[in-house]
């Protein structure tokens, strides 16, 4: 099987005021294509930092990181933007849709930054919105949608560019449990039917179990 994520001895330090924080202390992590893994750990264990590194939002202090065959730890800001745009899809806890744009426009954003023309864009976005079951709400603004619907738009936005990995940061954290389960069903479906690689961070055991592997972080180490 192909390795989508390959992390070798990753360290991450950052400064919090005057204090030097060692957030990650030698992480070794491999994720294969089609895996659905859950990262768990108490707050301060470094799970958000790890997710940021996987998401190429930040660079490791030390170590090697290969994402879908690309060595990314040495890339500059411009190149990291392209990696994020082409290889990653993000789902956030608080949805983070742009409030001035309707559902389909929000889904379009990653494709726009790729420079894809409108006609092709619309097709892909419709497809993605239908996958998450929102084919009929394409022209609604975020504030006209429920939390679950907003999160589905966010998932559509994450999958529209057919990324190598979908990263979800507490995707159910802002939702009630029923809606949360609906969202997890979508993730499961994407994982099983579309063979999508998913990495999620969560602190709920039930949610974590939906994935096929759980990685537990404590004090910057993988247990």
């Amino acid at each position, binding site marked *: 099987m192909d390795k989508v994520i390959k992390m070798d001895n990753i360290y991450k330090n950052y400064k919090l005021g005057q204090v030097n924080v060692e957030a990650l202390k030698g992480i070794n992590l491999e994720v294969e294509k089609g895996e659905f893994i859950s990262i768990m750990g108490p707050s301060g264990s470094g799970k958000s930092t790890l997710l940021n590194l996987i998401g190429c939002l*930040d660079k490791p202090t030390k170590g090697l990181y290969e994402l879908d065959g690309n060595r990314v730890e040495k890339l500059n800001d411009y190149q990291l933007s392209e990696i994020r745009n082409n290889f990653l899809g993000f789902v956030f806890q608080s949805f983070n849709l742009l409030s001035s744009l309707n559902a389909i426009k929000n889904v379009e*954003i*990653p494709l726009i930054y790729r420079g*894809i023309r409108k006609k092709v864009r619309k097709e892909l976005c419709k497809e993605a919105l239908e996958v998450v079951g929102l084919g009929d709400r394409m022209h609604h603004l975020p504030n006209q949608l429920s939390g679950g619907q907003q999160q589905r738009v966010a998932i559509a936005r994450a999958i529209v560019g057919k990324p190598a990995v979908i990263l979800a940061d507490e995707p159910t954290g802002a939702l009630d449990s029923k809606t949360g389960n609906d969202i997890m069903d979508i993730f499961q479906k994407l994982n099983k039917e579309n063979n999508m690689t998913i990495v999620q961070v969560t602190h709920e055991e039930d949610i974590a179990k939906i994935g096929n592997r759980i990685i537990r972080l404590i004090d910057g180490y993988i247990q």
Partner: protein
Amino acid sequence: MKEYEGSKSSLVRLYFTAKMALNGLTSNLLRTFLTVLGILIGVASVVSLMGIGEGARRTVVEQFESLGKNVVIVKSNQPALNFEPEEYIELLDRVDGLEYATSIVNTETNIRWRRSRGEIEILGVNEQYPIIRDHELIDGNFFSSLHVKQRSPVAILGYNVAVSLLNGRSPVGQSMTIDGISYRIIGVLARKGNGKGEGIDNKVIIPYTSAMKIDGNRTVSEIWGKSDSPENAALSIVQLGRIYKRQLGIYDKDTDTGGEDGNEGGGEEPGIPIEEPIKEVGTAKPQPQSQNNPIFDNSDDLITVTSLNQLVKEADNANRVMTLLLGGIAAVSLLVGGLGIMNIMLVAVSERTSEIGVRRALGAKKYDLLIQFMLEALYVSIIGCIIGIAVGIYVINLFNRNGLDAVVSLQAVKISTVVALTSGLLFGVYPAYMASNLPPVEALNRK
């Protein structure tokens, strides 16, 4: 990704970025309006204030130009130094650059037209006057050299005088009594307009020989000449200056003893080289000589020689400086408007931090955000600039309707556009830079 290769265009992101910048403006209309207002007021004040300055400048220039082009004036500031009535003939002969010249007699006397009496200003000149002043006649003819020589009782009327006599019908061919003598009206001058041509519209023009008789003087205090080009006018000034300096060499001694005497002698033989000829004579180059210059205000000079060209230039320069000063003051308010843009843009950046983070996560590059926020600032200044110019023009019209001479000056429009756009860009750069340099992680986590 390769599958969309054919359907890609780099314009897609630019268009989107431009649209998002517009979204940023429309998301808080009141704030946008207030920011635009800052630029708008600045631009409008530059355009209107410079319009006033430019209007004043043009008025002054027009007034001078109405006195004729390339006109040279020789004026004595002391009666003792006045010129012989025919001295201009000699000057025409001796001064190369001079094409035309006339003695000028300004006087005032009583006139009678039919049964009404009154006082009127009389201008005594020779037959070359219309050429010197670039003044046309609307009826009849100007008097000839023969009229001048024979001291004929003929009169040319200024426009307003002519109109007032016969309710607008031409009085040419009629007679009027000036200082007890009946004059035949043979021509009417074209209109110069209010305040132009030294009020010629309200004067009666007669041969200077006749005017001297009314005036009672045997000499004249002013000679007007004309050159065919600005260069020749400058040359004439130099030569005239030299001639009269040399003469004043005599008068410096004689004025103390007897003015009348020296007056006559000097007028007849101005060329006699007496005692110490002045040193500056050597500089024959036609350069504007400032010591010869201010005829109207500097009475320290005994005889002043100047050209209207110089006066126009000086007045023009003074006014131009004033215009720029006004514009400069207004431009400061434009800069303040620019600061307003920066202020609001900084607020916008900190308000939209998490949006910036989301964009970065979805693949926006630094320059996408840089362009977005720069454009947002630029939109404000462009809108402010366009409306500001419109308001400025409207204000100028208001001024004009209330009797102020203001004009829309292209220079003002250019200056305010350039200043507004650069201040928009300049003050947009810093907030845009802040936005684009936020680390994605930090931006995403900030609320």
